[in-house]
């Protein structure tokens, strides 16, 4: 195995230079140009391409939304796995069918679990 010469690392060096230079220059320039005297309300707000940032995001809402959304994603993604199996089912045969059944069984375990734990009830 040939050992790498130092020249092989040059792209990394260039990459590291820019990765460092860009944020450092941004921070440095904000100190240079935004002196406290020039800070107005508009200037201290985050710049979102001219669009106002909208209502404050720290409103409280029930955790049930999160729970439902998470459960939806989990089951949704799992169902997505079933489509490729359907496409190749004939070619693979009983092995695929068995795997398919096993997959559904695992899904059922998860379903029974969240149901008995009361995660499906709206609180």
């Amino acid at each position, binding site marked *: *195995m040939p050992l790498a010469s130092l020249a*092989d690392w040059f792209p990394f060096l260039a990459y590291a230079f820019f990765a460092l230079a860009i944020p450092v220059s941004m921070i440095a320039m904000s100190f240079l140009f935004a002196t406290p005297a020039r800070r107005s309300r508009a200037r201290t707000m985050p710049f979102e391409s001219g669009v106002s940032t909208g209502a404050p995001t720290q409103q409280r809402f029930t955790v049930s939304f999160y729970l439902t959304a998470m459960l939806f994603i989990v089951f949704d993604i799992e169902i997505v796995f079933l489509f490729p199996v359907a496409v190749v089912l004939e070619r693979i045969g009983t092995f695929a069918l068995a795997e398919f059944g096993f997959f559904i069984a695992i899904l059922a375990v998860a379903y029974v679990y969240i149901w008995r734990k009361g995660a499906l009830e709206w609180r």
Partner: protein
Amino acid sequence: MEEAFRNPGVDWAALAPELILLGASAVVLIGALFVPRRWRRGFSALLSALALVGAIVAAAIVYGLDDEGRAIMADSIRRDRLAEIGQILVAGAGLLAVGVSYWERRAPGAVEESENERAGDYYALLLAAVAGMAFFVAANNLMTLFLGLEWFSIALYILTAIGVERLASLEAGLKYLIVGSFGSAILLFGSALVYGATGALEFGEIARNAGDADSLFYVAGLAMILVGLAFKVSAAPFHMWTPDVYQGAPTPVTAFMSAATKVAALILTLRVLVTAFPDVSDLWTIALAVIAAISLAWGNLAALVQTDVKRMLAYSSVSHAGFLLMPIAAGNERGGYALLYYLIAYAAMSVGSFAIVAARERELARPVTVSNLANFFWERPFLGAAMTVFMFGFIGLPPAGLFIGKFYAFTAAYERGWTWLVIVGVVATVVSIYYYLGVVMAMWMRAPEPRVVPAGGSPPRDAALSATVVAALVVTVGSFVAADPLIDAMRDAVQFLDFPY
């Protein structure tokens, strides 16, 4: 052009331990929701214990069948004695952890209710973690390696945070999740680089293709895989999560984690380095030697100043990561079996000592410090005596198997020509005497702190915990008494590995 699907053929015997544990995990998870609440804990614990015994028996049977190792299931899993010994050790640690976890509370209360509620989850996760480790130690390509690693790590993240009513447990869980994921991500990145350099995932093929690999990616990948595994082994300087997580996690979880994670991660480290990276053995042996030396220094020095016993044991586990990496770093056959032999005694002592901390914690209902272990021997002579054996054992004194384990680890490093590492190890051992004996002194000689006696007077009866401590003692002392046959068995388990030195 369509290629016909080739069924790789499932080797059910080799997968039996994992399948038993996973099946039981699902049964516990669902079953606990249907049995009446007050039987929930007993049901889950009993079923888990049975499943773990089943997994040990299955692994032992496969061990008996395998005279020589072979790769199975599209070369993704290795069926050999090294894997089976790892599976037996991990399942054994799980079995002991079940014993530490299960205890009868006399007074019913709110905490007990919530604990009964979560018993099914707890034991199901414990079984899933053991199954993941059993899979991990048999991994034979980078994909199964990562799959196994994430499988048991995710179970452990949740187990760490399972005491949700304690803030420390939640904090430990979050820290472990973040730092652990970071370690996994580094390992995954390293795997990608190695795959990019060699075009291979299977360990043997990586070694064969290493000749025309791009050395830059290959070596960078190896380094990142090493770092990822060092996170799991909790070797310094990748140990920063260890004290916080060991301290914050529920003590039975700590007991399991400290023993089983080390066993799984170290066995796999040995396997992946020796089988996939023989070309660059000069690099990884020296890297591991340096990591071992740093772990020994850092772990022991930090343990000196700890007052919390769990935290002290966590730093002791960092320092033992150093002792355990030493034989791998030696890269010779003696190192291979020294590691396995050391792990047997270490795992038993680790679970045993945390079990005793758990007993004291239940008695006092607050964190155990060295000073509130005062008079422990005279209050509970059996547990005190067992703790004394474990503490002397951690130093490396007989009648614990670590005496011989340390001797072999040092010999392996010496045979490699690394006298400096042996000197670091000996100095570390001398330093460690101070804090291990501090515990012994407190238990035997210090007058008890004035404290409110818990209602009910006598300490809680923990039949399961006492049985666990007995089992841990039997393995600790037994590995010393039966050192010859054990070392022969371990030598037999590593003989198929082509050690570079």
